[in-house]
């Protein structure tokens, strides 16, 4: 099967990945785009045949119930990854997988398995894309083999030498439109109910926009709105930490943007535990900023997080005997 696809001379245009022109032209009419000769689409996992003796759980992504059942009682860290389209969510997922598979998280973490190997492999080749048109409204409970890309979970098991212990990570793969939709419309909060089960929320932020004087104020406003929606609309459990991840650090610098600290403070004012992290999932200049910069720190922050202990109020019982009265002092 061959597919007519386009590439664009503008470096930030994602038409090759999403089919949507940055300047809202029709691809065939955009002066910057050209049709590319497409190689046959790589084979993707397809529906099982009718005569299969055994069908295994889907390996492209897991629905929420699929994931919980295959964990078979073992604890899994559910990490929700939010952020606008093209903020860097999928790159972050791919970088985590590539680092793990190449022993790039060693010596502390080593790859111990994955139920969604096919899902990671297809995403790293940009071969698992959101379908044009209407996106699903809910995180799937179950997925089938031949589904188009569904909002679902990717699974990655890591062996932690500090422990030692096995860590099961369930990482959400959600379209950016979900995040922007939540900000725009409060009623979209119901699709984020699954966040109450999360062990952490990662919010991917395009750090290039934060460094751009013409965009940073809008970007900050959007992030603060998102925090407010999580706090009020979703009523996210305040024990769930939020990690603001400034992506594309290779282009915009490895220091946490000061503007992002403001967002962290805003989240804290809402009662959340929050911190900012800087990553460069894929680096344009790997000699200065390595591929995967900051990813290990992010993983460590997630798995090492300890929620604050609840401080119980001291209850002083009423005395049954008043020694003061017997001594005549009261």
């Amino acid at each position, binding site marked *: 099967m061959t597919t007519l696809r386009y590439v664009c001379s503008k470096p930030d245009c994602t038409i090759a990945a999403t089919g949507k022109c940055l300047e809202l032209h029709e691809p065939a009419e955009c002066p910057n785009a050209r049709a590319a000769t497409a190689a046959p689409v790589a084979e993707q996992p397809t529906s099982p045949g009718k005569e299969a003796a055994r069908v295994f759980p889907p390996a492209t992504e897991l629905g929420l119930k699929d994931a919980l059942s295959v964990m078979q009682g073992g604890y899994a860290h559910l990490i929700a990854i939010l952020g606008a389209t093209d903020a860097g969510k999928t790159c972050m997922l791919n970088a985590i997988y590539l680092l793990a598979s190449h022993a790039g998280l060693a010596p502390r973490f080593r*790859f*111990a398995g994955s139920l969604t190997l096919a899902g990671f492999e297809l995403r790293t080749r940009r071969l698992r894309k959101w379908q044009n048109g209407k996106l699903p409204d809910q995180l799937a409970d179950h997925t089938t083999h031949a589904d188009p890309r569904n909002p679902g979970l990717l699974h990655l098991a890591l062996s932690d030498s500090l422990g030692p212990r096995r860590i099961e990570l369930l990482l959400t793969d959600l379209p950016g439109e979900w995040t922007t939709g939540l900000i725009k419309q409060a009623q979209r909060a119901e699709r984020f109910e699954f966040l109450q089960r999360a062990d952490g929320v990662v919010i991917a932020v395009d750090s290039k926009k934060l460094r751009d004087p013409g965009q940073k104020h809008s970007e900050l406003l959007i992030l603060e709105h998102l925090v407010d929606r999580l706090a009020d609309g979703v009523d996210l459990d305040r024990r769930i930490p939020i990690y603001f991840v400034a992506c594309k650090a290779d282009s915009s610098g490895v220091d946490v943007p000061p503007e992002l600290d403001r967002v962290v403070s805003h989240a804290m004012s809402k009662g959340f535990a929050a911190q900012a992290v800087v990553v460069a999932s894929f680096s344009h200049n790997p000699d200065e900023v390595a591929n995967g910069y900051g990813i290990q720190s992010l993983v460590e922050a997630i798995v090492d997080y300890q929620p604050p202990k609840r401080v119980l109020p001291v209850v002083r019982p009423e005395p049954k005997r008043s020694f003061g009265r017997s001594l005549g002092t009261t």
Partner: protein
Amino acid sequence: MESDRGVLLVGGPDMGKTNYLARLWGAAYKFKTGILRADGLPDDLEHLDAILGSLISGNFAERPNPNEHWHCEIPLKVENDGGFRGKLIVPDCPGEEWQHIYKKNEWSDTWEDRIDGVHGCLCFVRPSSDELRAPLDWMTCWRLFGTGNVDIPTTEETPTQVEMVHWIQCLQYAKRARKSRTAKLRVGVVVSAWDALPGNVRNGSPLQYLESDLPLLHQFIATNAPIYDFATFGVSIAGGDLKADEDFRREYQEGDPFAAGYVIHDLSGQREESLDHTLPVAWAMGLDPLARARQEAGS
């Protein structure tokens, strides 16, 4: 009495399974100095004798018909141990079936019907094969993600190590689904054509080769000891290149072809070389090959 311990021989196309099978059959049936001996003749002898005939004549065995797949079960026993018996199972499917399992996330009766009897498996990789697909690297991914102005990526097949880890996980999943309690699955990773590796790699261990070239598989082996028993082997069935080295081929033909080749292992904790081609199968069946070898040497 321990009987019918099955070992699956698996791996993608051109990974060295056919040649190892030929060498194993020759060692078990004819050479008879290894731990395992043939326990009678298999039902289907035609293909086995064809590939063994090819090998002892000085030619690497080819699958008789690449589009044909044949089922084979070689009955094996331990010499001087009337109780221990097992079989090496070559599933009735071509090497491409291995990739089919990954892509379709299912398998056929060919595999399902044999699960209960499987004690272990030998998974083959051949470093010098064009069919061995390397892991996706950062450079390729940067090309895909580093800029919005990307060329359409060429179709790239899934890396071999990814398919192998996926298959091992599937096998474990299926065994657990069929029996809630099961002995730990023994998974032997066999690096075939060991003699074709560069000298510095060849002088190391198979595990070191995996760490360098197949890091995902290596880490999976290192971190899953509670779930599987793993061992790694380097195998050279002839000791050299029968195809490209005419001098070596002549020397091989003039010598004893049944005595050729070697197996590299670290079952003792150190790199060792053995002439016993049945050793990987014996290990996968659940034997302690080194203890057996000491026992036989002492008797």
